[in-house]
């Protein structure tokens, strides 16, 4: 079946099986491998990307459902050597250790900041309830998102 989503600003055109999951489409067909598969059961959020501006778990969306949609993955955030404010805040606040959850965590944080540009700590914790991290204990992730909220351009993406 033919699909033509826009991924990080580039229009794609592929023939795919209807059962292909969006995360596998992004990784194996488009070749963007930053988005990780963690649980594969809609629980961990490692596969989070933006679909038409909102966070979704791409292991629980079919590529064919995203036909014609705008998808943004974490690859779109940094500009050359310059990190996106949310990425910068994760770096400065030690919001990651092994980094496995980070691409999904950053995309969930971006979606959260779009809905709550000036969130409370509680709103950050609740807004990230769909993303699991085995390493950090979350405190520094929450700190990073609160720090990002004050930075110019925190809710923007180039794509």
């Amino acid at each position, binding site marked *: 079946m033919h699909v033509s989503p826009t991924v990080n600003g580039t229009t794609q055109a592929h023939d795919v099986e209807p059962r292909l999951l969006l995360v596998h489409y992004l990784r194996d067909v488009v070749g963007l491998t930053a988005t990780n598969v963690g649980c594969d059961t809609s629980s961990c*959020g490692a596969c989070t990307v933006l679909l038409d501006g909102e966070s979704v778990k791409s292991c629980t969306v079919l590529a064919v*459902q995203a036909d014609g949609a705008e998808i943004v993955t974490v690859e779109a955030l940094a500009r050359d050597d310059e990190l996106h404010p949310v990425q910068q805040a994760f770096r400065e606040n030690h919001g990651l250790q092994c980094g496995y959850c980070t691409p999904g965590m950053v995309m969930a944080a971006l979606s959260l900041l779009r809905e709550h540009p000036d969130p409370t700590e509680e709103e950050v914790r609740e807004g990230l309830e769909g993303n699991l991290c085995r390493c950090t204990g979350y405190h520094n992730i929450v700190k990073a998102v609160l720090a990002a909220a004050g930075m110019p351009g925190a809710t923007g993406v180039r794509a």
Partner: protein
Amino acid sequence: MIPAPFDFVRASSVDDALAALAEHGDEAKLLAGGHSLLPLMKLRLATPAVLVDVGHLGELSYVEDGGDHAAIGALTRHRALETSDLLRREAPILPAAAATVGDPQVRHRGTLGGSLAHGDPASDLPAVALALRATMVVRGPQGEREVPADEFFRGFLETAVGPDEMLTEVRVPKVAGAGWAFEKFTRRSQDWAIVGVAAVHNGSTGVALVNMGPVPLRATAVQAALAAGATAADAAAVADEGMDPSADLHADADYRRHLARVLVRRALERAGA
């Protein structure tokens, strides 16, 4: 985990979706947000031969003022319920309960119609529909019919929606100013309810339970006790009467019964019943 192969039909309208269901019969399933169906398909617990995708149909995504009720399109996503000013004003239990469904990513995709039509006793919104005495609008080859919430949930994952029909709208009575409470007991914040309670007190009291049997259930014993003048505490003591909760990893049946009694008392007190 990859679903078994299927054919995919992207419906261009409700009529187009109904035509596809008529053509493919029992082999076909509607796909709305996919957040109940796709996990089942990945586990191969569901293997429909044809998926009829309606998730993108804007014509069924709305919250409108219907006079004495709020009219909600079946494809309205949980996030839109959560943020609807009309619902926050006229039926605040629904946005409050929608805000507890899963996590933000789930709420960006899952729909009200999917939540109700899936008929999962562990889902939150069927209990809210029962407590509010909502009406479901179902469309099929014979036209449109209205089904009260009490006649909608038929069995485990089974509702009044036939294989060639589609839930199109949910009508929620306006209850601005009514007392209400949604109590959801979970181990972790993104989890499904181990037990949940929806209560709306608007003259009479509507009470319904999440995960206390094979279907979303009205707490008829509680309502009868309240109608006969019982206090909230006394009415809550019969919350598990007539219920048949299951046992699973999270809770055995007795624990669910205990939770139902405790949570119903809290909900009734909060709703001012």
